[in-house]
């Protein structure tokens, strides 16, 4: 059982979700309430990580952010270290890969907010921020929670991108998924089995918990609105 790798994965998931979710809330709200030319292109672009193999994304990040690209060199000068083969690089990759998992559920939730509720709020002279925090967020909360859980679990299981651009460095980029792969290659099936079981139990528990939580929250909203 590679606790260091498990801990690293949990840390990666937490940091990714913390950065991604606020950004996803703003982006999905914009997409839900605005129509503009090229919107379907933007939405398609957001969905791309769903259909692309993670190794493709990993390849582009490795080449695009590595020390042989101008962007990679620029970032290295600004940050003092490289993005690839570094924890921060994994965060960038995880954010990119998880955009669809974050935006989709939240956008659907925003779209479900009745227009008259927002109109009423605007008529009361509430500021846009106030409408977001007092009216909309409490209503789209189940969507946000779903996005949060999907992203968190997805980062925990991410493999291809991390393999391509992480470099498998213990304590830095060797996540639990990589550690499982390593254990299997080293014929250490006991350890691989334990880690896989932890991930499986975690995934089922978290999904069951959030499903029930979002259901009860949804129910609370319905009753409050009545």
């Amino acid at each position, binding site marked *: 059982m590679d606790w260091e790798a498990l801990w690293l994965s949990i*840390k990666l998931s937490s940091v990714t979700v913390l950065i991604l979710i606020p950004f996803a809330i703003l982006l999905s709200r914009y997409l839900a309430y605005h129509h503009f030319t090229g919107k379907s292109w933007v939405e398609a672009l957001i969905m791309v990580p769903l259909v692309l193999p993670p190794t493709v994304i990993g390849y582009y990040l490795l080449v695009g952010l590595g020390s042989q690209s101008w962007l*990679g060199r620029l970032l290295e000068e600004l940050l003092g270290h490289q993005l690839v083969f570094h924890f921060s690089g994994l965060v960038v990759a995880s954010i990119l890969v998880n955009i669809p998992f974050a935006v989709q559920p939240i956008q659907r939730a925003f779209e479900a907010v009745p227009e008259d509720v927002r109109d009423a709020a605007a008529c009361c002279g509430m500021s846009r921020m106030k409408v977001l925090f007092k009216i909309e967020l409490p209503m789209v909360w189940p969507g946000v929670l779903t996005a949060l859980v999907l992203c968190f679990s997805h980062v925990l299981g991410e493999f291809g991108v991390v393999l391509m651009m992480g470099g*498998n*460095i213990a*304590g830095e980029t060797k996540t639990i998924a990589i550690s499982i792969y390593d254990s299997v290659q080293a*014929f250490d099936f006991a350890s691989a089995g334990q880690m896989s079981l932890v991930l499986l139990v975690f995934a089922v528990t978290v999904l069951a918990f959030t499903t029930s939580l979002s259901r009860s929250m949804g129910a609370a909203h319905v009753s409050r609105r009545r």
Partner: protein
Amino acid sequence: MRKLKGLVALCVASLLLCSGIVSVQAADRDVPAIAAASNIKFALDEIAKQFTKDTGEKVRISYGSSGNFVAQIKHGAPFQMFMSADEKYTDQLALSGATVDEGVLYAIGRLALAAPKSSPLKLDPELSGLKSLLKAGQLQRFAIANPDHAPYGERARELLQNMGLWESIEPQLIYGENVSQAAQFAVSGSTQGGIIALSLAIAPQFQKMGHYQALPAELHAPLYQRMVLTKKAGTTAKAFYAYLQTETARQIFIEFGFGLPDSSTHTESGN
């Protein structure tokens, strides 16, 4: 709103936690990251353990495929040392200017014929067991590493070609991404066997599942395994590099079935 405050508190707490971990990690940054071909895993783990015992210094070893490591080091991976399965890869890296010199040979790889304990495949150095199984049409699956980019796969193909078996066995082959995966296929029970690295077959972890027979080294081009220090190498990495050329390390390589370069094949190691 109360929920939102709770969430904010949670976020802050986890950020603090994260920064705590980051600073802990920063403290042991002088433990060099070393990239190593996965076929030397068991031997190198042993040597690294001995190195830490003798010197008190630690190394972090990442195992993977040599080709992948070359790509990563070329793009700036922080590895201070690279131990390749084939000198072709260290040569490539040296040409690109990422290493301090062209490195030294640390071991010569050998191939082994391996099979799960329940396999009908009889193991012998002349491969007559494999031939008869093929002739009887009873060989369904046989594992080697991918000959297109894995050195041990390339040599396995060469050996099968030299034995005149390649044409008949090719439809039955399954390819591992690297030789460790091929080894795992070879004893998983889903194949009748495979040709893998002797160093993996010798490991106790392997022996629980399968048995093996070393194959003659004359039947394929030698597997010269070379290591290089990259330009990022620090004191500990350099000490480890030197340690790998000591009698203690050489003895462990021999125990794991490697041949050894004689001292005349050593090139001068850079600073």
